């Protein structure tokens, strides 16, 4: 039997950020009820008619921002306590232990949630993404006249799932956190119910997401069958103490891998990505491209570092390397000739999944830190780029096509320059943040002996410049295409301007002074 502490009540403070965000959701729901009950003109469902400026969304936005800021403050407080304590983890919650041996020592002992600095940094990224996406949500909704008050609750709920994924060291916990991350996103994709593209993206994301979670939980049940527990440390202990790996465990781990690969959008499980990214409302796409990627890669690197380390690399590393190579090739090939900017960014997200999977192949604590740095740089660039797409796109269309970008540099010089810098950072141009992320990820993989994979990834990132440079060509050099009207975006709302300036400044700052980002990432130590 497994000996376990049900919960460490004295350590529950370590879940502070999650608790704060949960309270935020409750306050948001209450505030929405009060708003609907006491405002005389507005009945549920017809907010549009009596609230032309969408001011009814303001209280929800303010509550969300306060909640996210409080969670960030708590994360910094917890990081301070962690540093003062000197250990690698602040707390482990829901601790389980293996059988004690003759001397009374437990074979393994680990919590289902590890509050270490890696998890806290993932939580920090999640809260920052929440703030950025809620900020760009408001002008987006105002320009589309889409006043959906419930979307802030859904955004915060999804962020809670991200936080839990960053801490999770137990397959069941990971499953529940992935569902908590995904279920609100299925709804958010169908946010603009007037557009059939949005409904289509919602249906596709939902059906494929549910399919993936079926694989994940059935795989987890097989792992449970082989190991008798779902804790990552229990799996690692089982692997190290049984040299002959059982087929049930291998089947279970591969099904879990398929489930996670669906959510990561690794080729060949990527088919949903272009449609979902293109059809979803653009701020939601920004949230998916940044937040979901951070959370899922955090979960994947924990699974690799905590449990797969005991398994012979031939069982998992080669398969993962093939998926990484396929993701880079397919992502690059399909991105070359897209006419839609959102679809191109979706394929580029698949390529980035390939690069990040190179770091997963390398494994180990250093790879986790490089992943954090890469993901931070990529999130900054992708939120900024999708925000500019939301700003430039026509209200009825929710997407930008390359033909429409001609002489954008003359009419909107600041927006064009920002978009150019952000996509070049995605490509990994030196002096931008994206370069640092790529450099570190490739360095770790090289150190782990994956020379062929690294050379292949570098070649691919050179090829990817072709389609990132298409943005510059379209904005700065492209002659007018007959039959396309120029984009009329108007002046930039303050929330967009703030996000654009912050993302461009951070991209260049981290590119010129990489030690800022590198020191931050290297202090994100994962509990082993």
């Amino acid at each position, binding site marked *: 039997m497994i000996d376990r502490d049900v919960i460490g009540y004295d350590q529950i403070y370590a879940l502070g950020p999650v608790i704060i965000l949960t309270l935020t959701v409750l306050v948001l729901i209450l505030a929405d009820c009060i708003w609907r009950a006491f405002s005389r003109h507005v009945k549920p469902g017809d907010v549009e008619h009596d609230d032309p400026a969408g001011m009814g969304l303001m209280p929800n936005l303010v509550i969300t921002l306060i909640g996210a800021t409080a969670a960030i403050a708590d994360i910094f407080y917890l990081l301070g306590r962690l540093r003062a304590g000197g250990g690698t983890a602040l707390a482990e919650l829901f601790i389980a232990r293996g059988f004690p041996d003759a001397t009374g020592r437990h074979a393994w002992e680990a919590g289902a949630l590890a509050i270490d600095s890696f998890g806290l940094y993932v939580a920090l990224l999640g809260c920052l993404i929440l703030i950025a996406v809620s900020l760009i949500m408001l002008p987006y909704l105002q320009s589309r006249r889409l006043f959906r008050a419930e979307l802030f609750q859904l955004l915060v709920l999804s962020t809670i799932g991200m936080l839990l994924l960053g801490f999770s060291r137990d397959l069941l916990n990971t*499953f529940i956190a992935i*569902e908590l991350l995904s279920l609100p996103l299925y709804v958010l994709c169908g946010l603009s119910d007037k557009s059939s593209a949005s409904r289509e993206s*919602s*249906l596709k994301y939902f059906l494929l997401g*549910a399919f993936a979670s*079926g694989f994940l939980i059935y795989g987890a*049940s097989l792992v*449970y069958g082989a190991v008798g527990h779902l804790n990552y440390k229990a799996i690692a202990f089982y692997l190290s103490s049984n040299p002959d790996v059982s087929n049930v465990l291998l089947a279970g781990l591969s099904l879990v891998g398929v489930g996670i690969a669906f959510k990561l959008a690794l080729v060949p499980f990527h088919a949903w990505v*272009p*449609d979902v990214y293109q059809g979803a409302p653009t701020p939601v796409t920004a949230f998916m491209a940044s937040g979901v990627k951070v959370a899922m890669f955090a979960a994947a690197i924990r699974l690799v570092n905590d449990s797969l380390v005991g398994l012979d690399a031939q069982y998992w590393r080669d398969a993962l390397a093939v998926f990484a190579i396929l993701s880079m090739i397919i992502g690059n090939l399909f991105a070359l000739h897209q006419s839609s900017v959102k679809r191109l960014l979706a394929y580029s997200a698949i390529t980035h999944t390939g690069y990040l999977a190179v770091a997963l192949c390398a494994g180990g604590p250093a790879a986790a830190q490089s992943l954090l740095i890469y993901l931070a740089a990529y999130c900054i660039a992708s939120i900024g780029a999708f925000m500019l797409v939301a700003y430039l796109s026509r209200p009825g269309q929710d997407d930008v096509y390359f033909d429409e970008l001609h002489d954008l540099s003359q009419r909107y010089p600041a927006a064009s320059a920002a978009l150019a810098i952000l996509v070049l950072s995605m490509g990994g141009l030196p002096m931008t943040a994206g370069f640092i992320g790529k450099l570190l990820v490739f360095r770790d993989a090289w150190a782990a002996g994956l020379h062929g994979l690294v050379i292949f990834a570098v070649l691919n990132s050179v090829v990817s410049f072709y389609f990132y440079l298409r943005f510059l060509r379209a904005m700065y050099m492209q002659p007018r295409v007959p039959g396309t009207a120029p984009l009329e975006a108007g002046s930039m709302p303050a929330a967009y301007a703030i996000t654009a300036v912050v993302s461009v400044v951070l991209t260049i700052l981290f590119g010129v002074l990489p030690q800022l980002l590198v020191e931050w990432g290297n202090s994100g130590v994962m509990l082993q």
Partner: protein
Amino acid sequence: MIPLVSNSLILSAVLFTIGVVGVMIHRHPVMIFMCVELMLNAANLSLVAFNKQHYAENWHAVDGQVYAFMVIAIAAAEVAVGLAIIVSLFKRRARVDVDEVNQLRN
């Protein structure tokens, strides 16, 4: 292994396979969704059966059975979200067929 457990495990593998094949061959979103539910229930069955196998003599160890309850709760939440999405699609068009939901590809 007691026969009940091994039979349950075979049944759960069969259910899972039916679910996966069903998702791939069905065209109606509700049918696809029911096949996904079949996959989740296959996982529940095997969690409970494996729990019985691991802790046959110990009635207090019920991890697997508790996991199954978690999965049931998650599946219920998925139903709530999923059926709402399918109904909102259904309201706009009389027929729902995943092959016809292809505006974004064209």
